[in-house]
């Protein structure tokens, strides 16, 4: 087969696939501007003079779900949890890697073990405990996320710390740095690539997480996934117009985040997969 023909075939295949990947998002986008009567009956046609609804769906969706508040909760919880996870897991990982005794190796295995346990195993008791300890609010849930996120994060940080020569830490300590200063001035800067990976993996998980926040804070604070699910649950027949508009609002921040940080995201996800 000659090369041009082969390339033409490959390109057609790629374009076909790319179209299939973009199509669903495109359909949701066009339907978000159609009046709800036309969404179920003609989902694949562009809005016309008759079916065009302007921003009506967006307005009713924002009202029904309180989406702006949800966006705020999701952002606050994701950012807060990611900062807590990166900070505390890296500190813990350094400690249990550098101080070797029975307790630290037990802790290491406990963290690794937690990675394989499905959420359903702990969801009931965890949400009851969160309730008893007054952790059922956007600040308390950060502690829960630290607990759940620490498994993978401690594991990844520990793997990296083992590759750092211990001599540079000792040099800092001989120069009179205490443990905290050694960690933040010497160790943490070296771990930057791992910290970015850990931050991205946890951000993707927490931003999209549904069941954990639903069980812990769902009745008072609706994060974006909870708000979207609520749209179906709360109102007998689903308002498809509002649903489409809210799906668009849920996807747009993700796409912006992705296009801006693509390089780090893809690298981070591959690194996470290879180690996890």
């Amino acid at each position, binding site marked *: 087969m000659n090369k041009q023909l082969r*390339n033409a075939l*490959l390109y057609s*295949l*790629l374009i076909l696939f790319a179209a299939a*990947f*973009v199509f*669903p998002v495109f*359909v*949701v986008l066009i*339907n978000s501007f159609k009046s709800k009567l036309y969404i*179920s009956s003609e*989902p694949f046609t562009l809005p016309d003079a008759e079916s065009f609804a302007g921003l009506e769906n967006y307005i009713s969706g924002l009202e029904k779900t309180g989406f702006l508040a949800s966006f705020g909760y999701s952002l606050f919880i994701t950012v807060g949890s990611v900062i807590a996870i990166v900070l*505390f*897991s890296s*500190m*813990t990982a350094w*400690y249990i890697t*550098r*101080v070797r005794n029975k307790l630290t190796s037990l802790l290491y295995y*406990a963290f690794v073990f*937690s990675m*394989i*346990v*499905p959420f*359903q*195993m*702990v*969801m*009931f*008791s965890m949400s009851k*405990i*969160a309730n008893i*300890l007054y952790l059922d609010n956007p600040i308390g849930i950060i*502690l*829960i996320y*630290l*607990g*759940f996120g*620490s498994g993978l994060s401690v594991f990844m940080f520990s793997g990296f710390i083992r590759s750092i020569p211990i001599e540079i*830490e*000792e040099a800092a*300590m001989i120069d009179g740095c205490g*443990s*905290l200063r050694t960690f933040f001035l010497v160790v943490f800067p070296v771990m930057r690539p791992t910290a970015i990976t850990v931050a991205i993996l946890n951000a993707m998980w927490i931003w*999209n997480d*549904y069941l954990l926040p639903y069980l812990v804070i769902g009745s008072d604070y609706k994060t974006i*996934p909870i708000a*979207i*699910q609520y749209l179906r649950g709360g109102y007998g027949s689903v308002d498809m117009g509002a649903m*489409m508009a809210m*799906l668009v609002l*849920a*996807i747009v921040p993700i*796409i912006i985040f992705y296009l801006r940080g*693509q390089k780090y*995201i893809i690298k981070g*996800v*591959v690194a996470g*997969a*290879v180690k996890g």
Partner: protein
Amino acid sequence: MHNNLKKQFPIFVLPTLAAFLIAFAIPFFMGIYLSLTEFTTITDASFVGVQNYMKAFSDNSFLSALWFTVRFTVVSVITVNIIAFTLAMILTKGLRGTNFFRTVFFMPNLIGGIVLGYIWQIIINGILQYAGVTITFDPKYGFLGLVVLTNWQLIGYMMIIYIAGIQNIPGDLIDASRVDGAGFFDTLKNVIIPMVMPSVTICLFLTLTNSFKLFDANLALTDGAPAGKTTMLALDIYKTFYGRIGYQGVGQAKAVVFFLIAALISLVQLGITRRKEVDV
């Protein structure tokens, strides 16, 4: 030298450890205990032995969810990996626009399960309306819908891992096989696939665990309809806990079984990865 550090346990470890105990370790052991009791809240648990496990295994919804999950997982693992590997092969040929396609294919991986579920609900119902039905009409539509959705979500992710694996193959190895007169499929079978086996192992297990534990997309796409026939394991456990009064203990017993299967998968993975490391 790290003696000073040793005394700093409360600063370095305690915050993480406290969160870990509250969110994971204590609920985990409580979960095992509660699976042997009857309870509605955690304070009124009374010991009933293995009764919950017997109820779980004689519960048709659990067995049907298990069977549905297994079938779904097998089909998803195969389709995702074949398509992802094919795309990775094409995107490592140095064609122009490779980056653009990579960006597009990976994008759905960032969208969460609930949003994915509703996106595909509108697409699938839109297609099915030409036949005058919806996705909840027949469990086979729900099954197919979940497979398509999972493919859409995971293909880009696996493709990226395969691309990394293929790019690690030394170019002269492939040239050498060409010079020896090997055709495309010979090179693929005898050079490329053996060289990317570590990536294959990673991708197989990632798709396996992701498919097996699927919950959000299942809840959003079909919510188990019709008549619970498209309920997967995670969703069935959830519905047993929160949808059936007096069944919390059975739900917890199902969750323990679910955990044991997931742990078994991870142990097999660990074994295979270890063996591979020895070989290389």
